[in-house]
C-alpha cells in the first residue's frame, strides 16, 4: 500500500549498515505520527527495516515494489 512520506530517504546503492543508520538519524528529526519513506535496493533491507521497527517500537507500514528498488514506509510512534 502506498503512503505519502513526510520525509524521503534515498538509500539506493547503500549497503548495511548505512540504510539503517540514516533511517535512525532521520527518525530522530521527525515528529510522532510522521511517515518516513525509504528507497532502498539492498537485499538486506527487506529484513532489517522491519526488524529496526520492531526493536524500536515504531510502525512498519508497507513495502512497495518500485521496479529497480523497493519503497518502505514507516511511521514514527515514539
Amino acid at each position, binding site marked *: 500500500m502506498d503512503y505519502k512520506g513526510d520525509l524521503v530517504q534515498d538509500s539506493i546503492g*547503500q*549497503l*548495511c*549498515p*548505512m540504510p539503517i*543508520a540514516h*533511517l*535512525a538519524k532521520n527518525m530522530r528529526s521527525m515528529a510522532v505520527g510522521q511517515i518516513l519513506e525509504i528507497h532502498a535496493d539492498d537485499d538486506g533491507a527487506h529484513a532489517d527495516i522491519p526488524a*529496526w521497527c520492531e*526493536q524500536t517500537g515504531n510502525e512498519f507500514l508497507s513495502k512497495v515494489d518500485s521496479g529497480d528498488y523497493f519503497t518502505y514506509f514507516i511511521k514514527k510512534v515514539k
Partner: protein
Amino acid sequence: MEENNKAVIILFSGDMDKVFAAFTIATGAAAAGMDTTLFCTFWGLKAIQKGNLTGNGIMGKMMGVMNRGGLKRLNPSKFSFGGAGRIMFTKMMNDKGVSPLSDLLKTMNELGVHLLGCKMSMDVMEIKREDLIDEVEDVVGVATFIKEAADSKIQLFI
C-alpha cells in the same frame, strides 16, 4: 530512551575485518536507540589512534613503527600479504559501495556511540591520550567496562 537499553562492545582486535564488524554492530545498536559503548583495548586501539608514531623507549618506539595505528593502516586478518590484502579488500568494498571505516566512524559519532580507550594497554604500548582521535570520550579501566557490561543487554568481544 528506555532504562538499561545499553550495548557494549570490546574491540580487542586491530584487524580490518574485525574492526568492520565492531563498527557495523555498534552503528546498528546505536541506530536501534541503544546507548552504545565501544571499548578499545590492545590491538583494537589502532582503530582509534590518529596514526602518528608512538612510544617513548626503544621497544615502545619499535612497537609504534611495526604496529602503527590509524584506520587506513589496518590489515585484514586473512590474506594480508604484507599490505596488499588491505588494498585488495578496500577496492572490493569500494566497488560494492560498502562504506569505508572512516565513514562508519563518522556515523557512529553522529549516532552517539561512546568511544573509550583502555588505559592499561595504552600504558603497555606507550600510546598517549593525545595519540588517540578526538572523538574518544575517555580512557578508562576494567571496572568501567564491567559496570557498563553488567548494565547492558548486549556484550560482545571482538
